[in-house]
C-alpha cells in the first residue's frame, strides 16, 4: 500500500457534504467560484471555506483567466481521486480474499 498522507487528505476533504457536492459538480468540468456557490446553494463565505479546504487537500486547482484576475475558476484534479480509487479497490480485494480464507477455515471442520 502506498503512503497514505494524500489519501488521508482526500478522505478528510470528502468528509463534508458541501465539499462532496462541489467535487460532484466539478466532474462536469471547471467552473467559476460564483457558479459553484449558486449550484450548491451555500452562502459565499461557506463556499470559500469549502473551496479552500478542497484546494489545500489537492483535490481542486484554482485558475485565473488572463483577462480577469479576480475571477477564480476551479477544476478537479484527478490524482488524489485515483489514489482513493486504488485504496477502495485494494480494500475490496482484501475483503474478498479474507472471506475466501474464512470459508476455507470453516470448511476444514468435520
Amino acid at each position, binding site marked *: *500500500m502506498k*503512503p*497514505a*498522507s494524500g*489519501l*488521508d487528505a482526500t*478522505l*478528510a476533504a*470528502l*468528509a463534508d*457534504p458541501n465539499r*462532496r457536492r462541489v*467535487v*460532484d459538480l466539478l*466532474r462536469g468540468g471547471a467552473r467559476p467560484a460564483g457558479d459553484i456557490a449558486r449550484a450548491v446553494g451555500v452562502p459565499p463565505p461557506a463556499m470559500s471555506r469549502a473551496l479552500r479546504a478542497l484546494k489545500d487537500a489537492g483535490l481542486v486547482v484554482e485558475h485565473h483567466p488572463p483577462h480577469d484576475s479576480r475571477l477564480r475558476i476551479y477544476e478537479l484534479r*484527478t*490524482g488524489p*481521486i*485515483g*489514489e*482513493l*480509487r*486504488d485504496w*477502495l479497490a*485494494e*480494500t*475490496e480485494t*482484501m*475483503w*474478498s*480474499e*479474507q*472471506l*475466501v*480464507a*474464512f*470459508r*476455507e*477455515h*470453516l*470448511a476444514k*471442520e468435520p
Partner: protein
Amino acid sequence: MPSRILVAMRVPASPDRAFAAFTGEIGAWWRGNRLFGFTPREPGVLSFEPGAGGRLIETRAGGKVFEIGKVKVWEPPERLVFGWRQASFAPDVATEVEIRFEPFGAETRVTVEHRGWDAVPADNVALHGFPLVVFLQRHAEWWRVLLDSLKTSMPPSS
C-alpha cells in the same frame, strides 16, 4: 451519501458457528498481507476482545499491539461492527466495518460492509442474485460514479 464496499460470501456453518469463528478464530484464518498491512512491519496475529467496547488488535511477533479499531456492535450471531484504522491513516480519519451473518439454508451468508470516509448508516442493502462463490456487489454510488467518470478522462494511476 453513504459510501461503501460490499463483499458477501456463503460459508458452510450456522450463523452461531460463523460468528464464533469469525471473532474467536480470526488469528487462525486471517491472511496477513504485507501489501495491506495495518502497520508497515511484518503482519502480526489478529484477535478480538469480545463484546462491545472491546478491540480488534494486531499483535506482532515482538509483542507490540496495534489497535485496528474498537468494537461498536457485538450482537452474536447476527451483527458485528468495528472501527478500522491503518497506521498510515491520520488520527481523524476513521473507517468502519460491519459484518452481518444471515442464515442461508444450512449455511450462512456473511456480508462485509466497509464504510469509508463517512459513517452514514447503510440503508437497505439489496443483494441481487447469489452465486455459490464470492461475489462482489458494486454499488453505483457517489464515489463509484465519480471514479468511473474519471477513468475515461485519465490514465490509471500507478
